[in-house]
């Protein structure tokens, strides 16, 4: 299977410190890829590099087998991806306006926008919030708007950086359940950064463990979780103490 995005000998340095050092890494179509690791391992940076939002220090990034010139990412390529972060970062305006923004920026006709927003509001169960100011929503509601805003453009790859970690447990469970259903129906390729084993285990089908800027292990999620190698065992076993694996 041809990878969508491929990293080739990528390093990322900030203030002479190597944050990332990745000889090879791939995102394949249709997978839900988890990236897990301790705090400061470089997960978020890796996500930004993969989404063409941050320039690597060296190495090449390929999209569908083609090298994308560093620092000169075509707008059309950037617009194939979308991202949802831990903070919802909504704009001052209605929920409708917030969800529509990706389409507005792509200059879609108004009637199409209206239709699509209604559809995604419905899918995320927030149709009743359409006319509310997005800044006055609860944490769970705001995150639903955030995810709908990212999904509405029907991205080729959806990048997620801990979108559930700030939510209280019941809210998180409900949203993850809904989200899993939505993304499976839409068959969207997703890359999901988290440090939470439960989230990873529930959502992803492939997992990469990253420690100190290096990918220490990757493979199908159940296999990685059940058979950590010498580099990832210490990190994963801490988690497993509190979260016995059962799918």
């Amino acid at each position, binding site marked *: 299977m041809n990878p969508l995005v491929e990293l080739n000998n990528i390093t990322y340095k900030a203030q002479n410190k190597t944050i990332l050092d990745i000889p090879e890494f791939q995102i394949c179509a249709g997978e839900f890829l988890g990236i897990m690791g301790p705090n400061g391992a470089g997960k978020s940076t890796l996500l*930004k590099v993969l989404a063409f939002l941050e320039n690597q220090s060296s190495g090449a990034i390929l999209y569908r087998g083609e090298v994308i010139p560093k620092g000169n990412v075509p707008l059309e390529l950037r617009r194939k991806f979308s*991202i949802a972060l831990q903070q919802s970062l909504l704009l001052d305006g209605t929920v409708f306006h917030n969800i529509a923004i990706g389409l507005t920026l792509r200059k879609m006709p108004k009637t199409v926008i209206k239709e699509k927003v209604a559809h995604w509001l419905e899918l995320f169960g927030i149709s009743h919030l359409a006319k509310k*100011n997005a800044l006055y929503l609860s944490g769970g509601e705001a995150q639903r708007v955030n995810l709908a805003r990212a999904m509405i453009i029907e991205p080729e790859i959806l990048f997620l950086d801990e979108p559930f970690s700030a939510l209280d447990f019941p809210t998180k469970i409900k949203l993850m359940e809904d989200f899993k259903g939505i993304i499976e129906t839409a068959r969207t390729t997703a890359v999901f950064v988290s440090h939470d084993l439960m989230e990873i285990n529930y959502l992803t089908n492939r997992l990469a463990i990253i420690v100190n800027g290096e990918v220490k292990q990757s493979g199908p999620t159940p296999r990685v979780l059940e058979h950590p190698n010498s580099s990832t065992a210490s990190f994963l076993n801490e988690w497993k103490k509190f979260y016995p694996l059962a799918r």
Partner: protein
Amino acid sequence: MELLIDGIKKAFDMILSGDREVFAITWLTLKVCLISILISTLIGLPLGILLGLTRFKGRRILLLFINIGMGLPPVVAGLWITMLLWRSGPLGDLTLLYSPTAIVMAQILVSLPIVTSLTCTAFQQISEKMLLQIKALGATRMQTLIILIKQLKIAILAAIMAGFGRVIAEVGAAMMVGGNILGDTRILTTTIVMEVSKGNFDIALALSFILLSVALLITAALTFLQQRKRIS
């Protein structure tokens, strides 16, 4: 107290009787102040955005000067402009001294730092993450800018209002570079100073009410623009 009532009466008289001189002075005041603040906004807004969103060499020094400029006394601005525009000065050939243009120049000098600095402060408070999120939504640079300006509408209009307040209240520079010439550079504030020195307190007071009404009207319009349509 008697004077206050006299002043209010006189102000109404002046407005209702359509006193041509008062009307001309008020109109000129409005024109000069609006043009000054318009130009200050057209320069200060992009400059403030640039200073707020980007990092470049010399940025902090520039910001320091702009912040000092916020406290620039109008008479100092007036003095500089006067010296610049003197017949013997570097711009003497333009014969701009004692013209409305000179007043506009001085008013820009005192209001530009305010508009720039307050705009910069607003844009500097936008988090890196927000910028990343907007970019990730597929915005071009221009689209990002438009989104940010809409988001910071309240702060931007506050900056413009602060600048306008400085401009309309200013008298020292207008007196110095304008010369308070009737029908040419006489604006409300300089007229008030002149009428006080003539001892015509009632006229001065009446003019002060007109000045306040003008300031109120403009500020009210800007406030309305700033505070409208806040969805709950």
